[in-house]
Structure formats: C-alpha cells, structure tokens
C-alpha cells in the first residue's frame, strides 16, 4: 500500500466478536478449567451410557480387584472394584453426578439468598444495610461444619437435607461481596441517570446494577460451589452426609479409608477426582473474572 492517504489510523479495528474470542482463548486458565469442568459434566450427564456396570451391584466374589494397569487387574473392571465388589469406574461416574448436583444446587440456593440480601443492603443502605449486616454477622458466628453436623444428626442425612442445610448456611460471602459491589455501582452516575429517567427501583437493581456486579458474583459463585462440594465430601466422609449406597466421592473415600494401606487406589481415585473438579471450577472462575474485569472493557 502506498502511503498517500491522509489517513493515519485506517487499520481496521478487530470486530467485537474477534476480540471476545481472543480474550476467551487467550485465557489459559479458563480454557483448561472450563474444558475439564465440561468433561466432568458430560461424564456425569451420560453416566448411565458410559458406566460398564450397575454402580450398586455387589459381587462379593470379586472384592477389591485392582485397576487394569495392575498385574492382577483386568479390563472387566477398568478401575477395579471396592470392598463390596462394586465396579469402581461406574461408581465414580455416578459420584460425579452427586458432587456436581450438590455444588450447583447449593450455589443456586445460597446465591439467591446472599445476592438478594447484598443487593438490597447495598442499594438502599441505612436500615436495610444495618439489618443485613446484622444477619451476616449472626450467620458468621455459626460454624458451618458444626451446624451442618448438628442438623444432619437431628433430621438424618440425605441428599435434599445436605443441599438445604448447606444452601441456607453458605450465603454469607455472596451477601458481603454483593453488598460492597452494589454500594460502589450505586454511587455511579448511570444509576442516577436511570433514576432521572423514571425507571423503577427493581428495574434499576436488576437491569442496571446486577449486570455490573456479575463478575464479582461469578467469582463468589465458583468459590462457593467448590467449597460446597468439599463440604459435602467432608460430611459424607464423617458419615453424616449422603448415605450409602449412594456413590458420593466423599463417601467413597470414607469407605476406602480402612483399606488405604492395602488397596491404595480405592482412596486415591476419588480423591484425585475431587481435587480435579475443585481445581477446574476455580480455574474457570478465575478466568471468567479476568474476562469480565472492567479494565478489559
């Protein structure tokens, strides 16, 4: 191109879509995390198709068969069997369903409670703020693990109970983060402009403020989902969470603990999966936060 044009800056700007793609895939942690997460989700979704055995079927003749890469292992049971002879691979697949279900539903319940409280406190301030702050401090005074243990001990452990207990206990961080994010957004002039236009309060909160505090919300949501999965595993490990014979990863670790010196894989495999899942969620959350960060806009 001969440089005869008067224009200095004609180089076409990349389109919005191209830039978004570049940002998305330029994020190694996001690609890695969401890839892994997607894989685990697909596995959980198609567990009935992928499973080689019934995860509940016991076969006492083939107890603690090692995975196929051991000399004694076979491809019949890819990851071996547990102490009751159940196929470990199939149990692992079904276990992913439990972990994801718990992570997601606890995140949704606590997210709705915490975000609502945080938005209200941050937007209205004053007495609403005092009330929410009081609720948060009260909630923080209760240790999650102890309260969960106590409730489960009283009403008995089952999947819905665990989800509800954790959901009603873990909204504090949502409330705190949303409150301060909302306070900041509330002070900006575009909120005043929306008020001056005559927009209703719910419309301002949901249409103007919520989209702008979404990045913070996503980060908290991922952290909380990961922490809920770990809490469920801990509760199940203590025998007060999901009850046997449901294949929860925490329960699998718990059941394997007596065999850990003889059949190491029994504890290593669900442990690794748990760590991978939590890592994937956290990586994805981190990546999303970087993408939504306002300086990128």
């Amino acid at each position, binding site marked *: 191109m001969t440089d005869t044009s008067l224009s200095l800056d004609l180089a076409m700007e990349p389109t919005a879509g191209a830039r978004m793609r570049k940002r998305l895939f330029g994020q190694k942690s996001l690609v890695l995390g969401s890839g892994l997460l997607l894989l685990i989700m697909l596995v959980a979704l198609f567990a009935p198709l992928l499973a080689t055995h019934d995860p509940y079927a016991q076969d006492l003749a083939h107890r603690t068969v090692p995975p196929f890469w051991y000399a004694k292992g076979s491809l019949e049971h890819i990851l071996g069997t547990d102490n009751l002879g159940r196929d470990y691979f199939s149990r692992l697949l079904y276990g992913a369903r439990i972990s994801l279900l718990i992570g997601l539903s606890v995140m949704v319940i606590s997210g709705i409670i915490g975000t609502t409280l945080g938005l209200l406190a941050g937007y209205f301030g004053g007495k609403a703020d005092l009330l929410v702050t009081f609720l948060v401090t009260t909630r923080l005074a209760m240790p999650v693990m102890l309260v969960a243990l106590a409730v489960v001990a009283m009403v008995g452990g089952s999947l819905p109970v665990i989800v509800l207990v954790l959901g009603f206990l873990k909204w504090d961080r949502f409330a705190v983060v949303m409150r301060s994010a909302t306070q900041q957004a509330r002070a900006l*002039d*575009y909120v*005043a*402009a929306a008020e001056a*236009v*005559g*927009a209703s309060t719910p419309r301002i909160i949901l249409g103007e403020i919520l989209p*702008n505090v979404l990045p913070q919300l996503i980060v908290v949501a991922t952290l909380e989902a990961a922490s809920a999965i770990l809490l469920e595993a801990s509760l199940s490990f203590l025998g007060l969470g999901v009850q046997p014979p449901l294949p929860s990863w925490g329960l699998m670790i718990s059941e394997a603990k007596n065999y850990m010196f003889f059949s190491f894989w029994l504890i290593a495999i669900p442990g690794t999966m748990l760590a991978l899942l939590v890592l994937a969620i956290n990586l994805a959350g981190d990546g999303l936060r970087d993408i939504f960060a306002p300086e990128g*806009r």
Partner: protein
Amino acid sequence: MTALMQAEGVTRSFNVNAGMFRRKRTLHAVNGVDLALEKGEVLGIVGESGCGKSTLARILLGLLPPSTGTIRFGGEDLHLLKRRDLARQVQPVFQDPYSSLNPRRTIASIVAFPLEVHKIGSPAGRRRKALEIMDLVGLPARFADRYPGELSGGQRQRVAIARALVMKPDVIVCDEPTSALDVSVQSQILNLLLDLRNELGLTYVFISHNLGVVEHIATRVAVMYLGRVVELAETQTLFANPRHPYTRALLDSILTPEPGLGVPETGLGLAFPDPLNPPSGCAFHPRCPLAFEACRSVAPKLLDTGKGRAACHLVDPSF
C-alpha cells in the same frame, strides 16, 4: 416570560458522622435557595466545590428531596409529580462520561433506555428513534452496537446528551458537562449544546466552575457560596459589573489565555470555611476584603439591585 421551574426556599441538609462518639452534625449543603427558571434561558450556576451546586442539581432533577422548601414545575409541586412524569420534562447530563453510561449496555440501548422505561413504541421503533437522536448529536450509526468503553470521552458525553434528549424534555440540567473533557472536545460539546438549544428550544441549567465557559453559554448566572445564592444577574451584567465581592473575586481569578497579564491576585485569603461550621453573619465575611462590622453578625438578604440581585450589605442602602 413564564417561569418553567421554580425553587422556593429550598434547603437540603445532611447528617454527618463526625466520629464514633461525637454528636452527629448537620451540613447545610443548600441553604434557602430561591430561583426561577425561565423558558428558553440558560441559567448558569457557578461556585467553588462544596458550595452546593451539585446538590441543587440533584434536587432539581428530583433525585433528592429538599429538606424544606418546594420546587414547582409548571405550577405543580415536584413532590406531587411522579418521577416518571418529571422524567419527561427534566433530564440530566452528568460530569463524568465514564461513570454516567452503563458499561454493559450498547450505545443504542443506552439512548433508547428512557423510551423502554416509559414503554414508548416497539423495540424496532425505539431503535430507530435512538439512531435519529444519535445522528442529531453527531454520533454515527455504526456506534449503535458498541459499548461505552470503546468510545472516547467526547463521544460518551454525546451519548449522555442523546439519552437526555430522547424523551424531548423541556429542561436539561448539565452538571459540569465539560470539565472532564479536553479543551478541543469541550468546545465541540458546548457548540452542540448551543445548537440543540436553538433547534429544539431547550432550557438549560448549566452548572460549572469554569467561568469562561459559563459566560459563553449562559444567559443568566447565579453565583453560589456555602449553599446560598449570593448574586444573580443577566450574564453580561454580572460579568461587566459584579456587585458581590465574591463574584468579583471569582471573575478576577479567570485565567484567559492572554500572555503577559500575569496571575491575578484575588485577595481572598486562603481559608475556605468549614461547611459544617459556617461563619456567622455573611458566610463570606472572613474572606471578604470589604467586610465591615455588620457583616460579622447580620446575614445579608438577596436584594434587588435594579439589574439583578445580590446578597451583600454593600448593595443594601440601609447600611
């Protein structure tokens, strides 16, 4: 001439926490303001930071209720007007175009937002209307689907003006609309505001600390000091013959780009008074080079001087 908007004895106070164990104190941000906004005029409001001009703007926009006093709009009390009805008549343009636009909406959706709130037209019709207004303020249609972050400061301020215009209001309250912009952009926005006023017959309240800009755009100027209007006059009268010593000091401190004149001496001294603890009598007396005994004890009233109004004992024949 008919008064479009009228403020009568408007005050606004805030409670300020001075410390955990100290008494709450009251800050009178706006302290008894009477103003009438005539149709078609540009009322400039000037003063230093903390003089209450931005609080007054928020009261006029209906964003803050006054503590006492009333605002009337076309004879109706602002209190009794619904916010949505008021929105059709008064719209804001704020100082900082970086915080006045929702970063998560596209330009077209920001401009069409007021129509959406008032449920005017179909989505396609609203978009058409938004593009029309964007064209009016000099924004090309290709910006419609961009986000505010992709625009320069001047372009963003045009978006804010477009949003204010889309409801066809009578009054636009501009709170320091050009002070966050570069001078070359500032002149573009000022030209645009003047053009729009001529084309659409708008009335502006123009708040600024830049007196050069106010002289250029305003037809009438109110000077505020510590929550009160201390002088009010037609622009030319005020700039040619300021009656209040504070106005004079403000005018003296304008730095026009003329070399060789040096930096003026305003004779104001340093101390801007603590707004939580305003001086007795005339609030300006500690800084006033012409203060005399009565100024320390008696607060002056805003008196008619024949060519405007001023709150100073020097224009009061009874002193």
